[in-house]
């Protein structure tokens, strides 16, 4: 236990040093921060945006059909946006390190993901048969490497309540502790534990209900 605490303290000090250096424009320090957190942010964004379609001429990744982008492209776009915001706030002195960098980073990321989800829901979806068939072929809920179980899980995630889904994504995709999530969303740890437990139970129930649906989609 003592060694775990020492390790945690050492990593916190190392992070503080990196943030200090990055705020002064140190590229190497900034690269280290990006390497530490970029994929976690990407996974969280991918989980939410993978099931929605993006519109616009800016998405040039694979699976782009008539302007509709794949989940990976959208998640990367959001991740880049998040780190641009973090970088400018660090360099501008708007963040003071108090051991809460992760909570702050993922709060920014979660807000960006929510904004993107809202923005996409406002866009009109195509109804002509050609575009619809192209979209359904190219942009599936998950990727082609997903197993049946993983696909069912993704589908079940889309049917969770927003508040439950956020706790799951912050806990698993972002890799935050319940204490960090509590600081981020300003709710008691007990509430979050209960919500997480309820969300897992819901996912289990939904997954057991969805095999027929997946059979139709295949």
């Amino acid at each position, binding site marked *: 236990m003592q060694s775990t605490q020492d390790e945690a303290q050492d990593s916190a000090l190392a992070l503080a040093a990196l943030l200090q250096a*990055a705020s*002064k*424009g140190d*590229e190497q320090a*900034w*690269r280290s921060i*990006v*390497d530490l957190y*970029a*994929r*976690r942010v*990407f*996974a969280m964004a*991918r*989980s939410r945006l*993978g099931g929605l379609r993006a519109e616009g001429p800016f998405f040039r990744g694979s699976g782009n059909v008539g302007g509709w982008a794949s989940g*990976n492209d959208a*998640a*990367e776009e959001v*991740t*880049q946006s998040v*780190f*641009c*915001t*973090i*970088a*400018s706030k*660090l*360099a*501008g002195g708007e963040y003071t390190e108090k051991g809460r960098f992760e909570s702050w980073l993922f709060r920014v990321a979660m807000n960006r993901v929510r904004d993107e989800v809202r923005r996409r829901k406002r866009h009109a979806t195509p109804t002509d048969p050609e575009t619809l068939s192209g979209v359904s072929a190219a942009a599936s809920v998950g*990727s082609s*490497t*997903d197993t049946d*179980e*993983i696909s069912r*899980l*993704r589908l079940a995630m889309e049917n969770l309540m927003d508040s439950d889904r956020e706790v*799951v994504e912050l806990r*698993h*995709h972002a*890799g935050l502790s319940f204490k960090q999530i509590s600081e981020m969303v300003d709710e008691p740890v007990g509430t979050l534990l209960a919500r997480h*437990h309820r969300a*897992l*139970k819901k*996912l*289990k129930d939904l*997954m057991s209900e969805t095999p027929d649906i997946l059979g139709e989609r295949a």
Partner: protein
Amino acid sequence: MSNENPNNLREREERLEKDLDAVSGLLDRLVAMDRASADEEFEHRVFGASLAGLKQVVQTEALVSAAAQQDAQAADAELEQRVHATSVERLHAPTLRISDGDSIPLRPVARRSIFSSWHVRSAMAAMFACAVTVGIWKASTQNTARTSRSAATIESLRTHVDRDFDLLLTALGDSSSTASRTADSDSSDAEFKAEWIDDMLEGGASS
């Protein structure tokens, strides 16, 4: 109340927890797949995109401080130039010769309008306000005096007319006392006296 065997209940709870652990494990697998789905160049692209923001702020701050420094230097240079020009001007200013041969350089007089002084402007404003106040007061007192004079004049004329009217009646042989005069005669007397006063005020001949 449930009649379920406590052992069955415990087994059900354990089974539920096991299922939830399985879901949690599946979630972790999903997360690992999602994190791995980004290609090798992903971090490099994120770094490149965000570095511009990092550098831009730092560079902007450096530019701002450099610009401020330049402005300060330019202001200093300009001030120096003005001081130099003024001192040269004074050096070549006309001088006043006095009897013992010494000369005193004339200080150039700054030609300023008398009205540029705050004190002068305040004094003029106060004088104007006084003049207006006096004018208004005078006008109101004259009006009052005029009104008072009119009332006094009429009162004096009425007294005069009353006395003359009595004399007139006496002269006409109507020396009846006030007690014997009727209301009608009082009314006609008053009407006559009023007309008399009007005539006097207008400057016409008495009836």
